């Protein structure tokens, strides 16, 4: 299954790019955040995939835009892993929520909102999860500045 997984992904997702990384499973790069629910539904239900565990869901700050990164794993043998990426704009874009498909997405999306500022349309309870409710700013963005709490090394 491992050898044919990239081919199966390319066949099922013609508009997306599939990169292969040695040893850590392929990376499926979608066109945007709007394509996520459809893709995840297919990944979970289609018999050649059955990626039923959304192990991790996070974001990266790539400077000009953000990249949503999802890591999947199969709970049945073989326990293959898969990474899915989807670029989103830094501000203003609402990504459709995955919390209807995966229960774990509810808290992961709250964390992405808390630390990156990405909003998720249709999320049942989108509010900060790790930082206090009245915190200003989204710390994991590269341009986050906070003179009150952040002492840099060498201060």
């Amino acid at each position, binding site marked *: 299954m491992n050898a044919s997984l990239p081919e199966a992904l390319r066949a099922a997702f013609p508009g997306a790019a599939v990169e292969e990384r040695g*040893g850590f499973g392929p990376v499926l790069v979608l066109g945007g955040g709007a394509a996520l629910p459809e893709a995840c539904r297919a990944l979970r239900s289609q018999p050649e995939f059955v990626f*039923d565990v*959304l*192990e*991790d869901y996070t974001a*990266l700050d790539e400077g000009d835009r953000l990249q949503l990164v999802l890591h999947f794993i199969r709970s049945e*043998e073989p326990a293959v892993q898969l990474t899915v990426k989807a670029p989103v704009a830094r501000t203003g874009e609402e990504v459709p929520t995955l919390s209807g498909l*995966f229960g*774990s997405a509810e808290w992961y999306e709250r964390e992405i909102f808390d630390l990156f500022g990405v909003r998720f349309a249709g999320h049942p309870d989108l509010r900060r999860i790790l930082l206090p409710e009245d915190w200003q700013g989204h*710390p994991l963005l590269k341009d986050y500045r906070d003179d009150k709490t952040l002492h840099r090394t060498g201060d």
Partner: protein
Amino acid sequence: MDHDAFPDPGSMTADLPLVTDELTLNMGPQHPSTHGAMRLILRLDGERVVSASPDIGFIHRGMEKMAETLTYLQYIYLTDRLDYLSSMLNEWSYCRAAEALAGIEVPRRAEYLRVLAGELSRLASHLVWLGSMGMDLGAFTPLTYTFREREMILDLLEMLSGQRMTFNYLRIGGVARDLPPGFADRARAFLDYFAGMPDIYDRLLSDNAIFLARMRGQGRLTPELARSHAVTGPNLRGCGVALDLRRSDPYSVYPDFDFEVVTRPEGDALARYRVRVEEMRQSARIVRQALDGLPAGDISAKVGRVFRPPAGEAYARVESSRGIQGFYLVSDGSTQPARCRIRVPSFANLSVLPELLRGVHVADIVAIMGSIDFIVPEIDR
């Protein structure tokens, strides 16, 4: 006193409308049984929980952001402080990710030492869990037994790394120090002593009628709910799904080792308890095999003084004592990671708690939380 002559209170009030209010009760963040600073906002209807909503972030130290200003080597000691009960396993997943970024191959002896340290760490973590599980339910004695054994493990790990708890033992490419003289004998003596201990814990707790009544049938986790919430580790194996990365997606030298993946079908708190107690026996088995089969060789690959991996990314996981723990490192070619994402098992394990607590009695909350075995600083990072 003739109890049959007493009027049944239910019949007297049967036609009166019962007016009740929901009570909002705050559990934590300072509470002996929340396993850290976590707040559980409970809405209660009498003794039954209507909804339970965890509020986390009280130990949010910003470790993911800190990785962007520290070098790869400097960050190892911070990874210890995630799941500090099994620190070696955190370091291991981080080092695997860093090694994957740079394409470093770890020598066999170092891998065996990592397995040895990691399984001892897992054993220590399960001992703390067992002690606090008993303590949460009111049984203080198992804590004294398990901490006694844990002290012996900490003595071994202190011989190995110099530290009792947050070890800073692994390095990118291997481990920092070889086994000191006398370690193997002392470790074997401990294993011989420990062989009979899980049976003693069984006699203390597992056959106790009150313990069984409080744990059996509580917090029943179905495989579908577990998969949906990305629950991993003994919690997932306690509902029958045999996902253990050491066997399902083997890493390091685990294919060389002979051990069982422990599962139980019931999915309740008692099943998770039994899975962990059996895992203690399996971890001791692995440690013995690691000592017996330790190959000669280097304890670390040759890594330059300045670790500067090429641009790229890597996501490496290990089977931690609580589930799948992974590090997703993105490198931009400099000495500091561009992004360090920590996938912690307790975050997902805790997210299923509101489902498990719906409709239970207040007194059972502690039993269910203890059986999930999450650790809050790991969740908050």
